C-alpha cells in the first residue's frame, strides 16, 4: 500500500545503492526530519527540553552502543562509564577555554582511548567473560571519577559547563542546544547507516556471526573487534559531551552510573540489535514508558481511587525495564525494529499476502 514496490525500476546502479530506495521511505525520513527541525518553534519549551532533547541524545548513545552490540556482537555493560569519560574530558577542556568543536572531538578520543584500552584487555576473552570485564570497567571508572577530586572536583561535586559556542552560535538557548544535539545525532545516524555498507561493516558482521569463521576468510577478528570498540567508544564519548553540554549543562559522577549503562543496553535490545531505526524506537520506549505508566497510575488513582504506594510507584521504571528486556528477548529478540519491519513488509504488497 504505502511502501509501493510496483513501478520502481532502477536503471542505474547508484539508484539501487541509495540509502532509501523506496520513495515512501524517503518521504517518511524527510517528514520526520522536518518535524524535528521545526520542533523548537512548533512545540512548547517544556516538551522540547523534557522529551525531545533527551530522546535525541539517548538515541545517539544507543546508536553508538548498537554498533558494538548489534554490529560486532560484543556485549558492553559499561557504556555509561565510556560516556562519562567523554563528558568529563570535554567539560574539563571547555573549562580550560578550549572551543567546543575541539573539546567534542577530544572527549570522543579520550573515551575511545580508554575504552579500547579496556577493550584490549577484555577482548582476550569473549562472550560471558567480556560482559563481566565491561561490568568491572563500569565500577572502576565510577570509582576513579568520583574519588579523584582532580577529575570530579570532589565526590559530591558538580562541574558546571561554561557558556559555550558551537560554530559561532551560542548554545545558551534551549533551541540552540537542541539543534546542536540534533546535528550530532544526524551525523551519527548517517555514519551508522553507511558503515554497514563498507568493508569495515561487513567485516564486523562476519566477526559477529562467528569469529573464527571470519578469521578463516581472512578477517582479523581481534583487530576488528578492537576497532569496533574504538569507534563505538568514540561515539559514546561525543554523546557524553553532548549530554553534558546541552542537556545537563553540568557533570556529576552519578549521571554516568551503572543505571545509564543498563538503560542503554535495554534500549538496544528493546529497539532491535543492529538496527538504526530500532535505536530510536528503543530509546523512546525506555525513556517514556515509565513516564506514561506513572501518568496512568496517577490518573487511575484520581478517577477510580485505586492508589498504589509511593514505593511501588518509585520502582515502576525498574520493573518495566526488566520486564521489557525479558519480554522482548523471549518473544521478539529482534525488537521493535522487527515489528516495524513486519508491518512494512505486510503493507509492501498489501492486497496480497506474501512478499517475495
Amino acid at each position: 500500500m504505502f511502501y509501493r514496490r510496483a513501478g520502481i525500476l532502477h536503471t542505474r546502479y547508484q539508484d539501487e545503492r541509495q540509502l532509501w530506495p523506496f520513495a515512501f521511505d524517503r518521504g517518511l525520513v524527510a517528514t520526520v526530519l522536518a518535524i524535528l527541525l521545526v520542533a523548537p518553534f512548533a512545540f512548547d519549551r517544556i516538551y522540547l527540553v523534557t522529551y525531545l532533547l533527551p530522546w535525541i541524545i539517548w538515541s545517539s548513545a544507543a546508536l553508538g552502543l548498537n554498533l558494538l552490540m548489534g554490529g560486532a556482537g560484543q556485549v558492553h555493560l559499561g557504556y555509561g562509564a565510556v560516556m562519562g569519560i567523554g563528558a568529563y574530558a570535554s567539560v574539563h577542556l571547555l573549562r580550560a577555554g578550549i572551543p567546543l568543536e575541539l573539546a567534542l572531538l577530544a572527549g570522543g578520543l579520550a573515551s575511545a582511548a580508554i575504552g579500547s584500552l579496556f577493550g584490549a584487555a577484555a577482548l582476550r576473552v569473549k562472550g560471558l567473560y567480556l560482559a563481566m570485564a565491561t561490568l568491572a570497567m563500569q565500577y572502576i571508572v565510577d570509582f576513579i571519577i568520583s574519588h579523584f577530586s582532580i577529575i570530579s572536583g570532589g565526590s559530591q561535586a558538580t562541574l558546571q559547563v561554561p557558556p559555550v559556542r558551537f560554530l559561532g552560535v551560542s548554545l545558551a538557548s534551549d533551541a540552540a542546544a537542541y539543534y546542536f544535539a540534533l546535528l550530532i545525532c544526524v551525523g551519527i545516524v548517517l555514519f551508522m547507516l553507511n558503515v554497514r555498507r563498507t568493508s569495515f561493516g561487513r567485516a564486523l558482521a562476519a566477526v559477529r556471526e562467528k569469529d573464527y569463521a571470519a578469521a578463516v576468510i581472512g578477517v582479523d577478528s581481534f583487530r576488528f573487534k578492537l576497532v569496533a570498540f574504538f569507534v563505538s567508544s568514540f561515539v559514546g564519548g561525543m554523546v557524553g559531551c553532548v549530554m553534558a553540554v546541552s542537556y545537563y549543562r553540568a557533570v556529576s559522577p552519578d549521571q554516568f552510573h551503572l543505571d545509564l549503562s543498563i538503560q542503554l543496553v535495554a534500549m538496544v535490545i528493546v529497539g532491535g540489535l543492529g538496527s538504526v531505526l530500532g535505536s530510536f524506537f528503543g530509546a523512546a520506549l525506555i525513556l517514556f514508558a515509565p513516564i506514561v505508566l506513572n501518568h496512568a497510575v496517577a490518573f487511575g488513582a484520581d478517577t477510580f481511587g485505586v492508589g498504589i504506594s509511593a514505593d511501588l510507584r518509585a520502582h515502576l521504571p525498574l520493573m518495566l525495564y526488566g520486564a521489557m528486556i525479558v519480554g522482548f528477548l523471549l518473544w521478539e529478540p529482534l525488537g521493535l525494529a522487527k515489528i516495524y519491519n513486519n508491518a512494512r513488509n505486510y503493507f509492501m504488497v498489501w492486497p496480497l499476502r506474501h512478499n517475495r
Partner: protein
Amino acid sequence: MEFALILELSVNGIFIGLMYALVAAGLVLIYKTSGIANLAQGALAMMGAYVVWAISAQLGAPMWLAIPLGLIVMFGAGLLTERLALRRMIGQPVIMVIMLTIGIEIMLRGVLPGIFGAAVKKLDVGIPNDPLFIGDILINRATMIGGLISLALVALSIAFFNSRLGLMMRAVSDDQMASWSVGIRVDRAVAIAWGLSATMATTAGILWGSTQGVDWSLSLLLIKALAIAILGGLDSIPGVLLAGVLIGLAESLATGLLDPLVGGGTRDVVASVIILLTLLLRPHGLFGREHIERV
C-alpha cells in the same frame, strides 16, 4: 601498621569472604550444568531474604518455620525461572542469555522493593550481634557465624557432587549430548541446578540480611560473587572457597589500609579490579578448566 589490626582485618575478611562464597557457589552450580552465568544471582539472594522476611513478619510465622518455607518457595522460583525463561533461550547466542538474566535481575530489583517497601527490613534469625574478643582482636560474631554456616554449606555442595544426583549433574556439565545418550535427563538436571542455586542464594540472602538488613542493596552481592567465581574458575566449587577467602581478605585489607589514603569506597572497587586482573592474567581462574577460547 600494627600487627593486631592487620590480623583483625584478615580474620573478619576471611569470614566475610566465606559469606560471599555462598552466592558465588550458586553461580558456579548453574555454570557447571548449563554453561550460563546467571547475572540474576544477587537479585535471587535479595528475593530470598525478602521472602523469608515476608513469611516471618507479614504472615507471622516463627523463624524456624519461615526459613525452610522460604527455601522451598525459592527452590520453586528457581525451577520456574529456568522453565519459563531460560529454557526458551536454548540455542540462542550467549549475549542474549546474559541479557535475559540481566533483565530478570533488573525486574526483581524493582518488583520486590516495590511490593514490600524500600525501607530497610530487619531480619532477626537469632544470630547475636555482639562482638567477640579473642586476645586483642575483635571478631564480628554475626559474620563469623555466617561465614562458618556458608563454609559448611559449600562443603556440603562439594559432597553433593559425589552423590547420584550430583554425578548426573557432573555428567551434564561435561557433555550434554553424551549425557542425553546415556539416559540422563539433561533438562531436569539443569532445572534442579537452578532450584538449588536459588536456595543457596536464599541462604546467603538470609545471612547477609540478618547482618545488614534486607533491602535492594543485597543484589549488589552479584559483583563480589562474580569476582569470586571468576577468580576461582567458573566451574570449580573448591575454587569458590579459596577465591572467597582471598577476595574477603583483599577487600577487608583494602578497606582498612587504603581507605584512609584515598577517602573511602575501595571496598566496592576491589572486586572489579580482581575480575579484570584475573581475566588478563589467567582467564580460566585458579582451578577452572582451560577451555576458554582466547581470541
